[in-house]
């Protein structure tokens, strides 16, 4: 027999689907919403419902969008001629928040990894090929993670762009701001050294 009544069980099971939420936290959240803050619970319910019915994926950049016009694909961004490829939506937000870059994006939603069944089709690369073929991208900026999978993905993306005569760049990897060389791992340091720039 279940510990909770049927509706409460369903709520707790639903909360447990969130990342990082185990049975104890789910129980705490459920009790909090039901007992202390029923308004917040209602707000959460409508917000979720709204988000689910109103947010889709932009077919061009594969980021979430809710208006007819995707906020990352507008004409001003198109004019910049730059397109930045990232692995996930969180990477896009990180670049948007932390850098002055205001070009277009393409979100892969993963990286090439044959052992996990991720190939070019899963990453939407045919769609990216169409975008590159439209002719207003002058520079493809590759911002995949500096992992083996990210490297292989970058290589493939670079081949795609080069064959169309588009300039390809890759974000630099190296020592973090405020970091100390002493504590940086050898791989990062050797990348940083090989990617050094004239001052």
């Amino acid at each position, binding site marked *: 027999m279940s510990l909770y009544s049927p509706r409460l069980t369903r709520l707790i099971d639903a909360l447990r689907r969130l990342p990082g939420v185990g049975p104890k936290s789910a129980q705490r959240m459920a009790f909090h919403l039901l007992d202390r803050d029923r308004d917040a619970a209602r707000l959460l319910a409508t917000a979720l419902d709204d988000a689910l019915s109103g947010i889709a994926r932009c077919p061009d950049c594969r980021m979430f969008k809710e208006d007819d016009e995707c906020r990352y694909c507008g004409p001003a961004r198109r004019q910049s001629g730059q397109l930045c490829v990232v692995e996930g939506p969180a990477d896009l937000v990180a670049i948007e928040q932390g850098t002055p870059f205001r070009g277009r994006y393409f979100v892969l939603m993963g990286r090439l990894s044959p*052992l996990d069944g991720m*190939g070019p089709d899963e990453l939407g690369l045919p769609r990216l*090929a169409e975008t590159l073929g439209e002719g207003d991208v002058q520079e493809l900026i590759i911002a995949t993670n500096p992992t083996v999978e990210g490297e292989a993905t970058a*290589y*493939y993306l670079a081949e795609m762009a080069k064959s169309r005569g588009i300039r390809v760049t890759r974000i630099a990897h190296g020592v973090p701001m405020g970091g100390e060389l002493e504590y940086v791992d*050898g791989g990062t340091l050797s990348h940083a050294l090989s990617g050094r720039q004239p001052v």
Partner: protein
Amino acid sequence: MRERVTLEPAYLLNRRPYQDSSLLLEAYTRQYGRVGLVARGARGPKSKLRGVLQPFTPLLLGWAGGGDLGTLQGAEAVGPPLPLSGERVFFGWYLNELLIRLVARADPHPPLFEAYALALQQLPDDAELAQDALRIFEKTLLAELGYGLLLPDGIDPQAHYRYDGERGARPVPGPEPGSYAGASLAALRDEHFANASERGDARRLLRDAIAPLLGGRSLETPRLLREMRSKADKIPDS
């Protein structure tokens, strides 16, 4: 039985996210064969292991636990990651996929570990050496699994042969579809390839020898590489 292993030479074959901040690792070790390990907290923003736990990097791993999944307790890199780039990454993935698909967990083969390490070192070299490294690894893998190739000393380089896994090389009167040149079989036996046709034959023979061991499910890495090559060729046309 719980055991503790320290500083064991290993390479990572694959890793995937596990729970919130952990990684599930598939490692190939010298003395313990293929092992599954959980690296707790390795995906967290402060983890020092993130840069270390990469495939194609010679590692020393320590873990605790018997059963199916051990818990990683320490990891350090003993050398820089191999400079694999572009298609060579796929070559490395191919070796990893072979080990994952064909070698059972906790089935140690120290010579296979050495062969893997050697093959990885040769992958960044020129295209022919990289191909040869794959062939020699495949041959060692078959031998270690008990399906070693039967290539006797007396192969006549001028003659033609058929090859099958049970009976080995048998002479045929002349070249026929599916037959091999004696020179190719001798080259594969001696692990020394002189030209493209010997390399092509070795590749065909080893592919046919490995296929029955895969249980009807083909390997993903070669399929993906073929797909990417065919798309890359098509790109200039579109």
